[in-house]
């Protein structure tokens, strides 16, 4: 694994997020550097998805700062954040079921960006050969694995420089998880930065450079993925079910 360097592309500092009166995130700080895959690990309900949603603007943090490529983005609307080159792959996939594969991709399309690889239908179909064969199929008629590939492809159509991947392995067969891992490494090789929220330690170990562990809305551990893989004690404390 290459060691990423330079200033962080995505940085959270002291983020608090509430749902109504319930505090979900407390002083969450983390950073993702260029071409780095960072895992955000934690059990169900620990605050992984809320962290991701706070970044992309689907929920509003009450406190703290979020910056992307040096610019503050907290308080911006989702579409504005997305247009800065921050792609979001939601946890429950949220494929447009009444649209075809090609149309799903079209919804994600954005103008090309200078500092990001440019994606076309053909390039995406090369990355996800399954999708090429079914470009006229309705999103609602695809299997879970195919939908997961489609969601990633849809986000790539926005030519992002950084991707937020929310639990991509959820509900997928192990062989498909391997495919997701391969895709993540492919994207990293193309220079994309990725924040990966996961419960699946196996997938995270395969692809991540660094890892954070979140529990009850607080970051409890920060370190390289290799260290975490060695550290039985931490894993038992925060990740074992």
């Amino acid at each position, binding site marked *: 694994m290459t060691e990423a360097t330079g200033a962080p592309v995505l940085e959270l500092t002291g983020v608090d997020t509430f749902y*109504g*009166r319930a505090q979900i995130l407390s002083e969450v700080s983390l950073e993702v550097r260029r071409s780095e895959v960072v895992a955000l690990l934690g059990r169900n309900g620990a605050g992984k998805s809320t962290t991701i949603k706070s970044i*992309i*603007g*689907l929920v509003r943090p009450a406190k703290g700062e979020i910056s992307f490529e040096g610019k503050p983005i907290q308080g911006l*609307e*989702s*579409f504005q954040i*997305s*247009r800065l080159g921050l792609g*979001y792959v*939601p946890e429950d996939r*949220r494929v*447009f*079921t*009444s*649209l075809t594969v090609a*149309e*799903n991709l*079209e*919804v*994600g*399309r*954005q103008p090309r960006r200078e500092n990001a690889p440019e994606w076309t239908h053909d390039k995406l179909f090369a990355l996800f050969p399954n999708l090429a064969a079914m470009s006229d199929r309705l999103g609602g008629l695809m299997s879970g694995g195919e939908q997961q590939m489609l969601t990633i492809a*849809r*986000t790539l159509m*926005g030519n992002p420089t950084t991707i937020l991947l929310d639990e991509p392995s959820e509900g997928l067969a192990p062989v498909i998880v391997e495919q997701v891992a391969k895709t993540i490494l492919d994207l990293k090789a193309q220079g994309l930065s990725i924040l990966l929220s996961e419960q699946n330690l196996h997938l995270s170990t395969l692809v991540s450079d660094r890892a954070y562990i979140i529990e009850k809305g607080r970051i409890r551990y920060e370190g390289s993925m290799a260290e975490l893989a060695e550290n039985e004690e931490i894993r038992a404390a925060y990740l074992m079910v």
Partner: protein
Amino acid sequence: MADFIVSLLTGLSSAAAMFLVASGLSIIFGVTRIVNFAHGSFYMLGAYIGYTLVQAIGSTGIGFWAAVLIAAVAVGLIGVVMEILLLRRIYKAPELFQLIATFGVILVIQDVTLWVWGPEDLVGPQAPGLKGAVFILGKPLPEYDLALIAISPLVLLGLWALFKLTRWGTLVRAATQDRQMVAALGVNQRWLFTGVLFLGSALAGLGGAVQIPKGGADLLMDFNILAAAFVVVVVGGMGSIFGAFWAALLFGILQTFGIQILPNSTLVLMFLVMAVVLIFRPWGLLGIPESVLQIPSGPPERPLRPALPRVRALAGAACAVLLALPIVHLVFPEVVGTFTLVLVIEIMVFVLFAAALHFIMGPGGMVSFGHAAYFGGGAYAAALLVKFADAPFELAFWAAPVGGALLAFLFGWFCVRLSGVYFAMLTLAFAQIAWAFVFQDMPGSVLKTFGIADEYGAPLKITGGDDGLNDIWPSQWASARVSYYYITVGLSVAALWIMRRILYAPFGYTLRAGRDSPLRAAAIGIDLTRHRWLAFAISGAFTGLAGSLFLFSKGSIFPTTLEIARSFDALLMVLLGGVQSLFGPIFGAAALTWLNDLFSVLSYWRFLLGVTIIALVLLLPQGLAGFAGTRLGRRLRLARPEEMAT
């Protein structure tokens, strides 16, 4: 045969306006989730603007069609103005709240139209080049009808291409399913919504403009088309343009043949067909089940909590004032006049009506668009008992709540199986059927078919049709103003208290559980349909009670008490007051009744009322009762700190 074909073609041509308006309504609802009541007004504006433009430039064929198109674009722009100035600010308000805002727009447009074009019906000029008739098997058919027949498929094709082949159309279809995700993919929904409002409104305007040569323009067009358009949309399936197309054709044909069989009841025929369709296909002919469509919008409902001491004290004080008013009236008639007592009686009647509607709407999550059926239906039950059985007041009075409950029991059995907009539409359909039953004096007609008629062979007057039933007063002891005042206040306060008790009892919990999570409620063994049915009947009983109080305060009853407008009044009161609070309907009904009374002496009262409603919507997006949750309300200790308005 020739007659049949010509009738069929006439039916197809009359489908054009219905299809255009309905498709616009459907598109707007699909994306914004707003039930746009002002849609009928856009149709009306299309006709008026089209009329003026045709007068100016429509002497040639090209000029005429240009005028029609410009009118459509102009109405589209009016829709855009409404979206930017009004809807944009309230997308996040609780569901259906936007409905009141569009209702305010209806009132404003009515008076603006009256002011600009005057009260006379305008007779539309004929379309140049299409003034003649073609002969089909020897029967004449106006050439313009052929043009109208061609318009619907052309527009359908255009819409299909727009939605299927353009990026904009793809985005709109995606947003119909998941707005949040579309935004997270970098699409600015704001312009998507504005575009949709433009398209939908322009379609309504086009519908109004193309029918000028056939129907001209008048001030009743807005409500007349609105009911028909809703029916078309629901029968076709919410959000399905093809569905709207087929449903419009069906109803166009039905209308043409219906006129020959049952004159002046074509609208009832439409509602009857809709009721049948919804009973067998609860999501319309080509629609998809509501559960798939449902997208969480707005914040979740807050749990109901016991009232705070300060709120209880205020409620007690209000009751004391109500009880003291007549005494002040007797002692100082110049301070509290007869008029005030009459107004308070009227307010209490509508407070009870609104609270009964809120009973199923708020905690039950069932939005009835046709609650006037139980208000007027109950009142008619009491009135008929007085007229034909000479029942004393003390007995007849209670016939109304019983009648309201029975009617709700009957209609409810069908309705409670549906949810959301489909539920609303079916209740509206039943209310229209009940209205027609009274308005066209169906019992009289039915008796006549059995040979029972008056001495001239005309049907007996049972409900009295348009003339209503008159001279129905309370007994001597209750007829004095002050006595009747105390009856009204006593009964309505008691009824409010009973409803509140029911909602805080396990039955109320069950109802709310079913509203918040039908699946989970069913999974823990609750027979939801039965609970909803029972709640509907209870609501019907209290609505009937309000009807009874209304009847005996006026001494007469007319079919207008069962009208759509009356149902909408009640709906407006509940929404304006705030669905989330049990006090909401009380404030809403009191405010609207009072405002109505205040403005009704003015010449442009609709405009004023409309503007007031819009202002209230913008200022208090949680309804009037939402005031408690504002900063000021919490400082006055009317709400708990956590019940802050969002």
